[in-house]
């Protein structure tokens, strides 16, 4: 998982640089480092980051996100390389774990910065449940993300939810890695 997602992150970063010329992003690691490590280590912010040489090549510091570079990009580009990170879930669960809450919190920060954005949280599932059950599970995942965002001050009128069950896997593989990437609340910016 680590190698694959790091490679994916590198690719996405390269794409971001090519498309926008900037846009340093936090690693899109499906399973960030354990919370114990990130709370105890002074290097916590780099724990889940992509390889160092890529970071070195990036001209813009990680936070805050460049207002102009994000605010001016077409919606499709923005979503393709989104500042809003997925919230990942355990098997047959719609509970946000520590990593999920951290991702949702970071997304809430971005949404505070762009108060006009309206988003859709898509609930997705891995292929191991039936297509019918996964529609309900995806609904509950999306609803759980929306509820947590609400506790962070993101008003519900800005958050639409939808379940795609297991219809649109992000990783078409049949491995634990693939399944982990496909169990998610996926954020899409629908207007701004």
């Amino acid at each position: 998982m680590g190698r694959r997602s790091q490679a994916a992150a590198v690719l996405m970063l390269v794409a971001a640089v090519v498309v926008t010329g900037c846009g340093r992003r936090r690693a899109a690691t499906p399973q960030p480092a354990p919370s114990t490590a990130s709370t105890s280590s002074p290097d916590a912010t780099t724990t889940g980051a992509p390889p160092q040489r890529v970071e070195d090549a990036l001209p813009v510091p990680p936070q805050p996100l460049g207002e102009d570079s994000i605010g001016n990009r077409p919606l499709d580009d923005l979503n393709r390389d989104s500042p809003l990170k997925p919230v990942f879930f355990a098997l047959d669960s719609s509970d946000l774990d520590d990593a999920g809450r951290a991702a949702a919190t970071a997304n809430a920060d971005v949404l505070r910065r762009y108060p006009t954005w309206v988003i859709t949280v898509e609930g997705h599932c891995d292929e191991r449940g039936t297509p019918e059950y996964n529609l309900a599970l995806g609904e509950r995942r999306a609803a759980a993300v929306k509820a947590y965002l609400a506790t962070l001050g993101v008003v519900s009128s800005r958050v639409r939810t939808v379940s795609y069950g297991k219809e649109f896997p992000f990783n078409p593989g049949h491995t634990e890695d693939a399944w982990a990437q496909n169990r998610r609340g996926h954020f899409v910016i629908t207007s701004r």
Partner: protein
Amino acid sequence: MGLAAAVVAAIAVAAAQDRPAGTPQAQQPGEIGVVITGDPGTPPRYAVPDFVALTPDAAESAKTIGQVLWDDLNFEQEFYLIPRDTYSSIPVARTIDALPFAAWRELGADAVVFGTVQQTGGKVVVQVRLLNVRSRQTAFAKEYFNASNPRAYAHTIADEIHQQQRGLRGVARTKLAFVSDRNRDRLVDTVENREVKEIYTADYDGANQRRITVSRRLNLNPSWAPDGRALAYTTYRPNPDIFVSFIYQGVMQNPTKGVGANYLSIFSPDGTRIAFMSARDGNPEIYVMNVDGSNVRRLTNHPAGDTTPTWSPSGDQIAFVSDRTGGPQIYVMGADGSNVRRLTTNESWADRPTWSRAPFNEIAYAGRTGAGFDIKVYDIASGQTRQITFGEGSNESPAYAPNGRHLAFTSTRFGGVQVFTIGRDGRGLRQITRAGNNQTPAWSN
């Protein structure tokens, strides 16, 4: 005699009203004959040779009708169908008078079908007789015309022979609806690279696969109206919402009208109501509405997820899936939401119930076995479970044939996700789809 003739006439009228254009009509009642029996303790042995082409244009149809009729009669396992490749020694009869009864008897046939096809211009006339090889008497005789294709003649003949000879409601004229990604179209209104899934239909044997929706969106979970004239399904526009498409009229209705997210619609047995799952109140729950969207009522109220409703044959109960006790299990309640009780207790994960149709009273479902699912059947009266599939791929989304003797389901056993049918005894596996991936079959009445 008079009663039988009246029944045939009634069937013809019903066919004209309820069936799509192109289904052949019986023109005249046949001779009233006796039921053809086999040797004691064995099913009657049927021979179905090619039909006779009375005009040169009809040659291909004549061959097709014979082959399809053989397949249709074989499907219900009520008769033993003598393999067609053993008929080569039998002289071909051009007329009924030339039928070589002795040769058919020698081959072991108890019954033989003799049919003719006449094609003049666009008009096709098919005559068929079912003959008792021992007595040389006609048991069944009819003339058909106006079918949309040769297979439709065979399907109608098969259903009528099953009805007349066995009192059995055949399914040769039924259809399957399912979801397929075979077109490989891409969604146009999303930032993600996602495939369109459209609703398709096929004859019960997999022939005549046709695309029904042309929305270039995600379409899921078709279910048939009991009269076979409409399909209810979910379309993402982009909000998932229930649509009812009257497929022969080209009329579409949207009973849920965009109120929340709505999924897994299923018609009540009398066709007046639709049960569905909705998250409109924040959590997946079971709802019922009239087909026109009026009189929406919420049936479940539980913080767990309640989903995938299915009606009992009488329409007074609804089974559904809930994970209120942990893993998904199958529950039953009254159609008004009363008296919720758990049905499955021996499964770690019991999902996607489909209630059989009368006269059977059982629920097929997907039960987790190892890495995937197998199709199992829960008998309501006895509480016993029997297994239909045994670990070849993952087997999901069971749907009953209207006579309760077969199930459609999806399996990954040969790669991808494909629709299959199988007998309720687990025999007679038949692959229906091959193009792309295909899911969630529904079987028409």
